[in-house]
């Protein structure tokens, strides 16, 4: 075949042709995607999109203004480049491409976002479970309109106060386990009717004649509420806050919904980026094999690709944590290698998948894991050696940092476990839950922070508690517990 184009310039016809070619290859590899919507935007619009966490529209809030100013300045001073694309988990899947990109970059981005991320959004169980891709855009429109209406009716300051408080608790506004789906009105009426019928069938007037046991309702021990600790603080506030008005509850709900929408993304950063990077690499190489792109295209593509998957060593100036693109790409590529060309070590470590069909294995991995479990399951000793991973132990009572384990025979399993834990939600967000709501007393709310291994909260906790107090309307206190014992004085914020 002849190459689709030469050189850096792109136009819409070319984009279309590349998209068609990439779609064909992706279909050959069996990628299942939502329909694509590719939108071309300017760098300024990209900055706008940055400020609203990539969403095409959001409700107005000062913190987004701050984000915008910060990004804009970093960009203007040349301290930060802009992403080539932003992709939104929606149906159809929207990808924003910057007009400044060259043809090669556009093709790279289409393969990466519109086929890689897209298929991940559609396939991964967390996204399937937690986000309604077909409804998110409508919900955003609703949220924006609702917030603006509230501003008109109740004033900017009142709305801002609620949203500020919600933002402070955003990370504690997600459900990690699914709630039972709410009953529809029809089902609920049917259930009540059935219960009523059952009671009627069982009716016996004789029961009424039994003497009452001397049960005095006042002396019965008060049940603690909530019966179980609640991890979704915003949900609890929304449902039970004694003071919030209806519109304020709705605002809490909006922030909570958005937070829930982002929840899978935070948990699958490595997998999601790795998957997309693996596929743009695989698809574009295939195109090159078929002669649809020329060598110049490939050189430019490889340069961008190499930049994306570079992992700086920990002692470098440019080190900014473990690069999720690098780790994810390496892991998926390695998984394919294990399937296609396993060596003795792979057979020992991955007996089930060594030598199996790589497309099926990768598809299974993409669908059923999140970062934490993905690393725990698939990180191979070879990769640990390649990344030269090592673990540092930072213990409070030690004057030194201790090298806990390195990429050697004794360290592999420990290292893998630690890296997996490092990507777990619990390591990023402290465990703070609603412990008690004194419904019949002073209506105070008690939060319990369960401390693990002596790791304290930051000082910002006091500010968060006072934000929560503003939402709650009655005293809020934060207790810290470790190993079932209370630690220190509770942090209290009275009305």
């Amino acid at each position: 075949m002849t190459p689709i184009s030469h050189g850096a310039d792109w136009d819409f016809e070319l984009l279309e042709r590349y998209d068609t070619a990439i779609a064909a290859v992706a279909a050959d590899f069996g990628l299942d995607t939502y329909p694509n919507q590719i939108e071309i935007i300017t760098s300024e619009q990209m900055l706008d999109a940055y400020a609203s966490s990539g969403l095409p529209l959001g409700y107005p809030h000062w913190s987004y203004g701050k984000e915008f100013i910060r990004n804009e300045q970093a960009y203007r001073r040349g301290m930060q480049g802009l992403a080539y694309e932003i992709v939104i988990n929606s149906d159809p899947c929207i990808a924003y491409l910057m007009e400044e990109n060259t043809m090669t970059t556009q093709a790279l981005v289409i393969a990466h976002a519109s086929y890689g991320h897209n298929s991940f959004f559609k396939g991964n169980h967390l996204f399937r479970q937690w986000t309604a891709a077909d409804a998110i855009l409508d919900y955003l429109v609703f949220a924006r309109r609702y917030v603006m209406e509230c501003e008109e009716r109740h004033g900017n300051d009142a709305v801002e106060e609620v949203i500020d408080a919600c933002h402070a608790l955003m990370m504690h506004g997600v459900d990690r386990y699914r709630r039972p789906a709410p009953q529809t009105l029809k089902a609920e009426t049917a259930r009540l009717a059935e219960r009523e019928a059952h009671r009627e069938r069982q009716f016996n007037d004789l029961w009424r004649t039994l003497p009452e046991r001397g049960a005095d309702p006042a002396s019965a021990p008060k049940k603690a509420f909530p019966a179980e600790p609640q991890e979704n603080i915003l949900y609890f506030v929304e449902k039970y806050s004694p003071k919030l008005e209806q519109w304020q509850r709705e605002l809490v709900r909006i922030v909570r919904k958005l937070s829930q929408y982002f929840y899978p993304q935070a948990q699958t950063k490595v997998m999601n980026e790795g998957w997309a990077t693996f596929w743009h690499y695989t698809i574009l190489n295939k195109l090159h094999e078929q002669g649809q792109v020329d060598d110049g295209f490939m050189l430019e593509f490889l340069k961008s690709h190499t930049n994306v998957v570079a992992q700086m060593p920990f002692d470098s100036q440019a080190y900014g944590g473990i690069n999720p693109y690098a780790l994810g790409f390496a892991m998926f590529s390695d998984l394919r290698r294990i399937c296609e060309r396993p060596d003795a070590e792979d057979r020992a470590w991955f007996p089930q998948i060594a030598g199996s069909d790589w497309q099926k294995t990768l598809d299974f991995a993409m669908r059923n894991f999140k970062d934490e479990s993905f690393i725990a399951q698939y990180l191979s000793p070879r990769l640990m050696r390649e990344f030269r991973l090592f673990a540092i132990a930072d213990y409070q009572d030690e004057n030194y940092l201790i090298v806990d384990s390195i990429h050697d025979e004794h360290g592999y399993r420990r290292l893998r476990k630690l890296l997996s834990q490092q990507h777990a939600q619990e390591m990023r967000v402290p465990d703070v839950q609603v412990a008690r709501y004194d419904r019949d007393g002073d209506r105070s709310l008690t939060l319990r922070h369960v401390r693990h291994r002596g790791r304290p909260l930051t000082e910002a906790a006091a500010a968060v508690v006072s934000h929560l107090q503003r939402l709650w309307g009655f005293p809020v206190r934060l207790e810290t517990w470790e190993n079932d014992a209370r630690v220190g004085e509770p942090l209290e914020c009275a009305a």
Partner: protein
Amino acid sequence: MHQLIDRRQNGRGKSAVNRERFLRRYKTQVRDAVKRMVGERRLADMEQGGQVSVPKKDIAEPSFGFGSGGDREFVLPGNRKYVTDDRIPRPDGAAGGGGNDGTGGGDGDDAFVFSLSREEFMQIFFDDLELPHLARTELGRTERYKSVRAGYTRSGSPSNLSVIRTLTQSLGRRVALRGSLARDAAVAEAAFKTASAVGHAEQAAAFDDELRRIERRRRGVPFLDDTDLRYRNRVERPEPIARAAMFCLMDVSASMDENKKDLAKRFFTLLYLFLTRKYREVELVFIRHTDDAEEVDEETFFHDPRSGGTVVYSALELADKIRTARYATGWNVYAAQASDGDAFGADPARSARFLREKLLPATRYCTYLELADPSGFSQQSSLWTEYARVAEGHDNFAIRRATSRDQIYPVFRELFRKESQ
């Protein structure tokens, strides 16, 4: 089903509303910064954006996070020399080694600095002065343009097509192109005649063909071509070029404190902004006076403290002298005077008379701002009494007492009203 959409033409300022929220939230800081800028800037440079800085801790958004302390392990890439159980001294400062679990985060700077655009700066400046909207639109405009005819261009909208020009071009082109063909035809014609007269039938036929070919080409010249099209051209030209001279007169005797000077500066700025909207060229003259007047530069005018008594007359006299010397013809003269009204003896009456007889007839508009003491009794100074009498009889003289910024504007009300009609 794939879709390609070009969104580049969509609005850019999607974050404008968020930015505005941000400015609103940090209004006090922004206002302080604007106040500082007003103090530092020269009148002529007043109209630009500027930098505002907000302490980082004020704009932080709190959330529950892990502080330092306790026990933890973290995995890092790029091991070169460590083996298990090595001991490493703790690095100084925060976030040991920098695990990516969000303990770090400070960028080092402790202030969040951002810039205010010209519009935002002016907005806050006007807000402070409680400027009415009519005046705002008048002042908010950067440049006034007028569209004027400027010859012809080769491209334009069909409605601007100049038929006569186009046909002239077309005629010229046709004449030019056919001229050479006519010459060639004459030559071929002559050759044909000679050939057929001599009896060379073959040659004659060749020339005949040549003739036909030329005729075809001649007919091929189009009546109208794209290159003939001419459109009337219009360009935007700035509004009438006129000049104005603005006299700033200020009492700098000891009783004028910093606060009063700040008020005075805003008063002068407002007039200056107004004049720059109306005139292409505005010259500033700064005259300060104690018991005698002198012309100074802006820096000295606003910032150099002087002490001494007050003789207003001297300043008016100097202003008039400068006016006759430099701005006698072709200039629109405006004068703005700021004083705390301390004048004694015969001075107020003399000044008022001089103003009425000499200055007012020669100027377009005069304003006087009396900077009263916010704490003092609202007793009227003798200068005020005299000036008030003058103001009654003259349209182009306005006086006003002010103790705070929002009271300045009314002194220009009449001026703005007249000029915006």
